[in-house]
């Protein structure tokens, strides 16, 4: 790919993502008139008496922001984990974080129903708190499995993560079995993920949990190139491989845990966005990672628009990301040479 071709692609991604953000602000159960919102803003009447403006500010904006943060965060962690594990199949959920988070959410639901758990803990919903705590517990267990005498084994991280994910999934089945049918539907909805947040609280949680982690991961771009190429050669070039692997693991998992606890385990974004971008830009993380961030945000906004419009009522966004992403990913697999992903 020539430098000009690459610039064109980057411009396209940026423009497309901006368009998705704008479209997301305008899309919803009822169409939104920009002119009316503007008039309401200019007139200075309080938000409670300005229906259009309040829909825009109280509903559409937080929702769009959440989609942006979740999408870009998952795409970035996908890139980072693929480099850290030196495995192009890695996703933010490879290490079991999503399943553990879902297990935590289910546990909270069951405890709230029968065992007197309060709906919220320190102002944050109990479901979120449990999802986060379970996800972090998974992270620690997987880490201690894989860390031995100054080394972290990517293979053990992978195997440990997959096993922890399966354990969590059977925990989810147990919780489902213990729940009454009323709750099943609600929790299934949670399990499919959604960015239909209410107000700015969840957006703030996302911002605090995700933005600093993204900055840390983006600062390692040049190192990921080296690590992806070869462990020993990277070490010879002055990279502290263990520190890079450990910090990427913890920062990426923390971010994923926050995202899962707020938006549920939205599938596929963290796999498909990095690959789609990689297939055009190549694997230099200096380009791959920032473009994936932008494309991930735009892609999830797009999926959220579809989720709002596809069926009457809301379709869970996890279904949309997979329905749209799956076939596209298969198309990429058909079109690309296998060496694009190394071997």
């Amino acid at each position, binding site marked *: 790919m020539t430098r000009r071709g690459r610039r064109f692609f980057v411009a396209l991604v940026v423009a497309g993502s901006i368009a998705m953000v704008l479209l997301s602000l305008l899309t919803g159960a009822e169409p939104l008139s920009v002119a009316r919102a503007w008039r309401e803003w200019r007139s200075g009447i309080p938000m409670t008496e300005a229906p259009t403006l309040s829909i825009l500010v109280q509903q559409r904006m937080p929702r769009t922001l959440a989609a942006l943060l979740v999408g870009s965060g998952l795409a970035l962690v996908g890139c980072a984990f693929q480099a850290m594990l030196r495995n192009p199949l890695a996703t933010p959920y490879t290490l079991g974080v999503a399943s553990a988070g879902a297990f935590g959410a289910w546990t909270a639901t069951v405890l709230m129903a029968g065992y007197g758990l309060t709906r919220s803990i320190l102002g944050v919903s109990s479901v979120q708190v449990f999802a986060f705590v379970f996800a972090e517990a998974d992270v620690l267990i997987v880490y201690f499995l894989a860390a031995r005498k100054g080394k972290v084994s990517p293979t053990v991280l992978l195997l440990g993560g997959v096993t922890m994910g399966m354990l969590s999934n059977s925990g989810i089945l147990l919780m489902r079995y213990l729940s009454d049918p009323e709750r099943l539907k609600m929790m299934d909805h949670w399990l499919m993920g959604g960015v239909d947040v209410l107000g700015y609280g969840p957006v703030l949680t996302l911002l605090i949990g995700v933005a600093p982690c993204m900055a840390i991961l983006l600062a390692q771009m040049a190192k990921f190139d080296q690590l*992806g*190429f*070869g462990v*020993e050669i990277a070490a*010879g070039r002055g990279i502290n491989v263990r520190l890079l692997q450990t910090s990427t693991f913890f920062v990426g998992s923390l971010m994923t845990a926050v995202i899962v606890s707020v938006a549920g385990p939205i599938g596929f974004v963290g796999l498909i966005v990095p690959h789609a971008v990689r297939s055009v830009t190549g*694997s*230099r993380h200096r380009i791959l990672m920032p473009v994936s961030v932008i494309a991930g945000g735009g892609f999830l906004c797009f999926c959220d628009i579809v989720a709002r419009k596809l069926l009457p009522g809301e379709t869970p966004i996890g279904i949309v990301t997979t329905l749209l992403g799956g076939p596209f990913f298969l198309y990429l697999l058909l079109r690309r040479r296998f*060496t694009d992903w190394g071997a």
Partner: protein
Amino acid sequence: MTHTLTAESVAYAYESASPVFSQVDAAVRAGEILGIVGPNGSGKSTLLRVMSGLLRPGSGRVTLDGRPLSAFSNVDRARTLAFLPQAVNPAFALSVFEVVCLGRYPHMGAFGALSAHDREVAERCMRHTEIEALETRDFLTLSGGERQRVLLASILAQEPDILLLDEPTAALDIHHQIELFALLARLAEDGYGFAVVTHDLNLAARFCDRLLLLTNWRETPISGTPAEVLTGPRLSEAYAAAIRVDRHPVTDAPLIWAETPAGNGPSAGGDGPPLEGGRS
């Protein structure tokens, strides 16, 4: 400034294994090529890892210009000292030019932007190793020998003063083997220092200033000039094979060759049938 990398009575043992070597003294000096030879598993790669700072010696110390390696920051070390491992295993596809540019890492800013100077250096190193024609090829589609030349270019692009190369000629054809050693000799004249692991004893004899012969049963290697190290009895003992050292009729350099083991196919110079049976 001329640089020297020194190993002083270093020992190394992998976890719960007997020592690979102990009491190794070695020096890589500016302007010299140190050849490291020895049978498979004798610890050549391990020694390079220790000397490059990737592994900490169990005892003894490795110093760069008199300062222990551990006292350098990683990046400072990498600007002076480069290490080419025996194998790389890339997880993602990169073009040849991108691979060569990876070598610029210790000179880059935090976000890995390449300057015009970085590109120039990369292009010069590609010329040195005769890989300009491969520039846009996907590294993973190259032949083994082409890969080795690309890797050498990427190590040269690091612009180190001392280079530790693990079997850089293993997959090269005879043309590129001699080109590579000739290139190393030229660079050594310009003041670079090399330690090169190789299995080609004849090339080592011709191009190396000093040799280190590691063996599987001695814990201290034999070191000296090629003429001192490459003798029939020493090599025969080290490789557990009947090895003869003659004189090359043209260059007068040592000419090293192994006799065919008794009862195992044709004898030296003979024209018997190809090996058949003979092994239990």
